[in-house]
């Protein structure tokens, strides 16, 4: 069975501390002016006293049906065998078509390489060594779960099968591999 790496962001457990953001920057040497990963704190929503914030993880969704890959004229944007949407820097001319076509706006031009950059689940570094992506391993509240969703015994499979979850912009048919567990309303009971 082929691998299907997915990431689950539990918006109940997330506290918006940006440790993932910093760990990603450090692991992947992301230049200061740009970012592969942000957790945006949006809100407050609801009515007093039942207010809540939304913790919105913004990073590559690793779409199974990726618009960036479809529009790339040279095939520099491609889906790797492990399902991770990747960039072949040598084939890229920098037309920005993929950056414009991404519905989630998570691609950016790396000012050092002049090539589109984005989250790749740390595939060449940590994942290649059999470790979890930097954001997952650093998260202090264990809000992130990463793994192979095709492996029926994996933790990520269990989380997806037992907790309500959603994906962003499913109406576009992109089939994102980042899943989110929505925050419960009216406070969290231990």
């Amino acid at each position, binding site marked *: 069975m082929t691998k299907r790496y997915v990431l689950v962001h539990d918006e109940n457990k997330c506290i918006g501390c940006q440790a993932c953001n910093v760990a990603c920057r450090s692991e992947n040497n992301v230049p200061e*002016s740009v970012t592969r990963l942000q957790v945006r704190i949006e809100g407050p929503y609801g009515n007093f006293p039942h207010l809540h914030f939304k913790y919105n993880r913004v990073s590559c969704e690793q779409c199974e049906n990726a618009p960036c890959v479809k*529009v790339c004229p040279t095939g520099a944007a491609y889906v790797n065998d492990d399902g991770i949407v990747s960039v072949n820097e040598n084939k890229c001319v920098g037309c920005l078509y993929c950056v414009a*076509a991404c519905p989630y706006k998570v691609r950016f*031009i790396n000012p050092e390489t002049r090539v589109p950059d984005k989250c790749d689940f740390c595939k060449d570094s940590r994942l290649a060594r059999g470790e979890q992506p930097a954001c997952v391993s650093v998260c202090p509240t264990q809000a992130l779960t990463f793994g192979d969703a095709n492996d029926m015994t994996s933790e990520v499979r269990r989380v997806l099968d037992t907790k309500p979850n959603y994906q962003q912009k499913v109406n576009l048919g992109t089939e994102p591999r980042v899943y989110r567990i929505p925050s419960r309303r009216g406070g969290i009971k231990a």
Partner: protein
Amino acid sequence: MNNIWGSMEQYDPVVWNWIIAVYLFMAGLSAGSMLVAIGLKWYRQSRGLPTEGLPVIKAAAVIGPVAICLGMALLVLDLTKPFEFYHILLNYNLTSVMAWGVIALLVYIPLVFVFAALVFEKQVLHYAPWLAGVLKVCGLLEGSLNKLIFALALGVGVYTGFLLSAMISYPILNTAVLPALFLASAMSAGSAGNILVATLFFSKKESDCIEQVHRIEYPVAFNEALCLVLLFVGLNFSGPAAQAATAAITTGTWASVFWIGVVGLGLVVPVLASTFAPKAWRHTKGFLITVSCSTILGVLALRHFVVYAGQSYIS
């Protein structure tokens, strides 16, 4: 509120800028001028009228190659890696509209130069007599070449629309009307450009073919207006995100560009001018130059409006 997660600069939904808008205009201008010139040639041939040395066809032979080459130069300079643009000529991903555009342009651009060389055969042979043999062969194939250029020009006009409509998350861009709108406006820019260049540089007294080009301006303007209406009425029926995007023509700077540039200069001025201007004016140089410049500016405004307003609304 200050965000704590970092710079938001890279998340601007407007990724492609005015350089792309000008390229899309240039490609449309080139394709439109070829369509109009070859169409005029066929029209006159079918009536047994002479086609040699017509100012409009000479104008197209200038605009066709010059506009597309300027457009390509802009496009290459806008890449983040302009010196590695050749990769786009070596690698083709056929699900990408841009790759199909590259294929069409690779054939279209040389053929437009052949078209120009045949129109200005005497001048070309004067400076490059060694081309005589090649031009003779091209001259024999002229009929088929014109058909091929016409088909490729249609392709170039339409592809610039599909290039944008392939981006699924922008409601204004992601419609099937856009390629039709771009083709119709390419025809207006092409006919106006031909009239402008013909009037300025080639016209003597043969204003009759300018009149024939004028005749297609009404149907072309009608098609362009129809596409604009279809685009925005269609958006209104395509769900909340698309409905929100109709604000592009009611609020903000781009709404002014739309009403003053696209509708005013591009459609209202030319149509009113050709309908109500006194007969004595109609063939004066000043009138032809003013009206065609107005149309061209309108199409240029349309490309900017589509590129900027199109990317400003994301579903």
